């Protein structure tokens, strides 16, 4: 099983040179640590910053400079600041190439649920609905199963959904999967030591297994 950092590390391989990327809160934030140094990419923060830099040192901290997770950040070289309408114009207009975010459930047709659990206090969707409705490429980082062991890869989401037919790829602690155009989770890679059988047993939605499934390789 992959650690959170390994999930982030695997997702970082999906990043292409020249991309503008929005990273959600949690595991997605960790992806930044694993993007190869030879790739030039720009991280967008939907609260109004293009070009997120590393976290600040104590003496660099600026309360007027935070990311969408409300963490203090710095600005990378060549960054730009803007208002929230411009920021979501970028997202909605398809200028952000890649969105990486967490999920509570993903369905086999690419629906995602990540904002609301009935009966629990609802905190709100923030920018998630805009992001999933807009980006061309959406990758989900999540655990394959819930703490109680139930699959989070379903034929249909049971929780209120955040967006429909939007997820392209999923990286879990067990596998890398792609959403098939006609529906279904195409198994692309296994986590080291995890069998196809185990993934099969932990995937409630339709799993598509075509040929030999390679193990992920970590450098």
């Amino acid at each position, binding site marked *: 099983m992959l650690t959170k950092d390994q999930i982030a590390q695997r997702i970082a391989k999906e990043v292409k040179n020249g991309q503008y990327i929005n990273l959600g809160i949690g595991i997605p934030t960790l992806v930044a640590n694993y993007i190869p140094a030879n790739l030039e990419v720009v991280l967008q*923060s*939907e*609260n*109004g*910053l293009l070009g997120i830099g*590393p*976290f*600040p*040192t*104590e003496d660099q*901290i*600026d*309360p*007027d*400079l*935070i*990311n969408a*997770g*409300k*963490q*203090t*950040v710095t600005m990378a070289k060549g960054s730009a*600041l*803007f*208002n*929230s*309408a411009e*920021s*979501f*114009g970028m*997202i*909605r207009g398809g200028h952000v190439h890649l969105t990486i975010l967490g999920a509570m459930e993903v369905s086999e047709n690419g*629906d995602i649920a990540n904002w609301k659990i009935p009966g629990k*206090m*609802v*905190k*709100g*969707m*923030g*920018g*998630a*609905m*805009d992001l999933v*409705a*807009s980006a061309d490429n959406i990758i989900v980082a999540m655990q394959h199963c819930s703490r109680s062991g139930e699959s989070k890869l379903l034929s249909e989401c049971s929780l*209120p*959904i*955040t*967006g*429909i*037919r939007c997820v392209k790829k999923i990286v879990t602690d067990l596998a890398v999967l792609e959403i098939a155009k006609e529906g279904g989770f195409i198994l692309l890679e296994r986590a080291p030591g995890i069998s196809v059988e185990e993934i099969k047993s932990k995937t409630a939605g339709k799993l598509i297994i075509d040929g030999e499934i390679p193990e992920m390789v970590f450098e």
Partner: protein
Amino acid sequence: MIDKTVKNAFEAVADIPSNCMLMMGGFGLTGIPENCISAILEKDISGLTIVSNNAGVDDFGIGLLLKKRMVKKMISSYVGENAEFERQLLSGELEVDLIPQGTLAERVRAGGAGIPAFFTPAGVGTEVAEGKESREFDGKMYLLESWLKADFSIVKAWKGDTAGNLIFKGTARNFNPLMAAAGKICIAEVEELVEAGELNPNEIHTPGIYVQRIFQGSNYEKRIEQRTVSK
């Protein structure tokens, strides 16, 4: 140039009545109008509807207005960093209208720019779409969303001049310029107020036409929610 200066926060918010609609700039605790919030706290009003991306924390920002039970309804994209908020919501004392953040930003922008409605893809197929008109453009579905306007919008800028021109700093800009334009009366508090003519016209984020009142604030706390540092 028209002089928009008022003496202080108390004068700026003096005529805000009960049961009106307010917009407040800020994302998290960054760029919130701290001085005006303090001045409103001193007023004997209630039943406010507040449009703000977030609702502050228990003891800071809009959380203070919630604690004093001045708020009837929040229109936000993400709330619940505070326990009192949750208590009031669950007990039915407080209403909340949750809106996708980009839709919220665009609805406020539309309010300021005289666009009564527009189509956006956010929320298609979700409960946000319930009761809304949907339509397909170029093979993709969109929802019709309407403008948001307010009786008063309260914003916080870094620098401002007596003509009401504003410059924001860092990510404290966020919703502030959009809300400035969407309030019938816009109140701007600034860290540094200068004479008209001292700001570079090319660097202004909010032109003074949107601002009706401006004053220099003081004692900014600028509380940090997630102090995250590099080793």
